[in-house]
């Protein structure tokens, strides 16, 4: 069976505030989908309804075709999840916490033992396996939580900002773990507001804001959609630069599809001609001695589309 999650008309209201507004989203197949949106967009609310932590006012959430609201036990059986930063009973050790999690899932004791070893090694917590969780730092607890969500080798993995609370090294390790999780017959649905993280590990991306889905597409389509295969480069100068100069020195270079001003000293250049055009533009500007202080590819296509879509709603 192909792993899938589906939101059908999912709506959540907190008093007069609508956190999620008739969300329809179907994700299926073995892939990693990034669920993006600014703070308060409705990401965590959606994931909490997928794990039955909160209840929708309207609509339903399905995991592998089973309604979470109607049969949470069956729906969550093939699912490993990490929502917010859960706490584990402080007197338990990671081994005991995972043993409890596995036993409640119906895993055999030998399965629990072998998987506990694997997943705790994955999150670099093997040395702490018999220490009480209550003494752990936030980052260490989050590693154990990640391990618990992977214990049953689930078909569907739902992660809510999994690198929250981790230091840069820990964040890199979690990204690496998520990348390693991508395998045949596993769907990973991961919320994040770290765009580089999503670009790094995800195949597809869904953007949500004000409780509404703005788009859901593959990362490669996102890039095509925004730039039509163009590269965006941002230029910064020591002093103000005139439109005429920009037009003469930059826009006239073959392979430059457009120049737009960011402010008096900065401009953005859309380049369709590849690296050769970039080199030509840079050489011209250097030769013209215009006081160029930086020449750098601007934000990623995803970031541009993200900002573009989010700003529409503001």
């Amino acid at each position, binding site marked *: 069976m192909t792993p899938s999650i589906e939101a059908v008309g999912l709506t959540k209201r*907190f008093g007069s505030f609508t956190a999620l507004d008739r969300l329809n989203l179907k994700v299926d197949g073995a892939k990693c989908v990034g669920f993006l949106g600014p703070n308060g967009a409705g990401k965590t609310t959606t994931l*909490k309804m997928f*794990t*039955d*932590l*909160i*209840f929708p006012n309207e609509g339903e959430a399905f995991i592998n075709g089973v309604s979470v609201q109607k049969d*949470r*036990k*069956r*729906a*969550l*059986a*093939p*699912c490993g*999840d*990490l*929502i*917010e*930063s*859960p*706490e*584990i*009973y*402080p*007197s*338990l050790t990671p081994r*005991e*916490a995972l*043993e*409890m*999690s596995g*036993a*409640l*899932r*119906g*895993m*055999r004791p030998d*399965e629990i033992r*072998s*998987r506990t070893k*694997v997943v705790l090694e*994955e999150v670099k917590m093997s040395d702490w396996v018999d220490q*009480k969780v209550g003494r752990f730092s936030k980052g260490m607890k989050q590693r154990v*939580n990640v391990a*618990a*969500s*992977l214990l*049953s*080798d*689930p*078909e569907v993995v739902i992660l809510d900002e999994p690198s929250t609370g981790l230091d840069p090294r820990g964040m*890199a*390790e979690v990204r*690496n*773990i998520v*990348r*390693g*999780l991508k*395998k045949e017959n596993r769907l990973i649905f991961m919320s994040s507001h770290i765009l580089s993280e999503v670009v790094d590990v995800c195949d597809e991306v869904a953007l949500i804001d004000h409780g509404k889905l703005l788009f859901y597409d593959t990362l490669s389509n996102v890039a095509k959609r925004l730039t039509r295969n163009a590269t965006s480069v941002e230029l910064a100068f020591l002093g103000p630069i005139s439109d005429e100069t920009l037009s003469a020195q930059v826009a006239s270079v073959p392979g430059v599809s457009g120049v737009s001003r960011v402010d008096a000293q900065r401009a953005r250049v859309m380049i369709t001609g590849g690296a050769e055009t970039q080199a030509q533009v840079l050489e011209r500007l250097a030769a013209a001695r215009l006081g160029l202080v930086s020449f750098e590819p601007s934000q990623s296509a995803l970031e541009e589309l993200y900002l573009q879509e989010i700003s529409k709603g503001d």
Partner: protein
Amino acid sequence: MTTVAPVVLDSEIAPTLGHVPGTLDQAFLLSRYQLRDYLRARRFVLMMAIVAAIGAILSFILSYYHGSATVQGLTSSSNAFYGSFWAGGVTVVIIFSGIIFGGDAIAGEFQNKTGYFLMGLPIRRASVYVGKFLAAFAASLVAVLFYLAILLANGAYYLSASQAFPAALGASFLIALLYLLALLGAVFLFSSMFKNSLYAVLVVAVLFLFGFSLIQGLISDLVKIEPWFIITYAENVISYPFLSTLPAHVTTTTGPGGRFATTTYNPTYPEGLAIMAGYFLLTAIAGLYFFEREEFT
């Protein structure tokens, strides 16, 4: 910048999805780990210290005033001894253990975020509720048994061998367990109604240590109706197995000149047991109802 090679899970040892246990099986499984958490926590040490302190005070009084007529009267028979010290003390132990082990049992799942770990698993909320209830009951039972052990040690010392372990104590112990169930039911109800552990513990402590007794007194003295709907009213029956004659259900005494009539109510045996059983069932169901509807926002 260092790059880390992607880690691939070993699919050969990765298990297939097991059969998820039934609701009750999951409740028992959860209760084992919850009890382990209780027994290792400071709250358990605190509870044992409270029982030890009660036992120490009791043992000291028995020893120090052993020559006095009052204490000699209490140690003259097992019924007098256990009727006073067991029936009087165990309700305090039960109330304290209910507060300590049950007060934040459900509220803590929300406030401490432990619920996020549990509720992401394929488990019904009923399993979590029942599992935590069983664990709180078991932890409280350890405290009650500790208190009983202190009393039995004193009983073995002060009473004759034939009187040290009376059958009435067994009956009273069973009634005390029913009272513990009823009290935990009520405590879990309040715990389910709050998402804040402190509020839950405070409400439970105030109600069971002072509130219910105060309301009970006001109702019987001023309104002059039987307070059959108050759980603490039923606790009197814990002492009944030690009594040769049960107290009158209703006693009215009048002051000088026929003024100031005072009415005292005592629950009958069946009434006391029914109040406890009713409290347990109703509050446990109501508590589960609230927990099923509470959101992890």
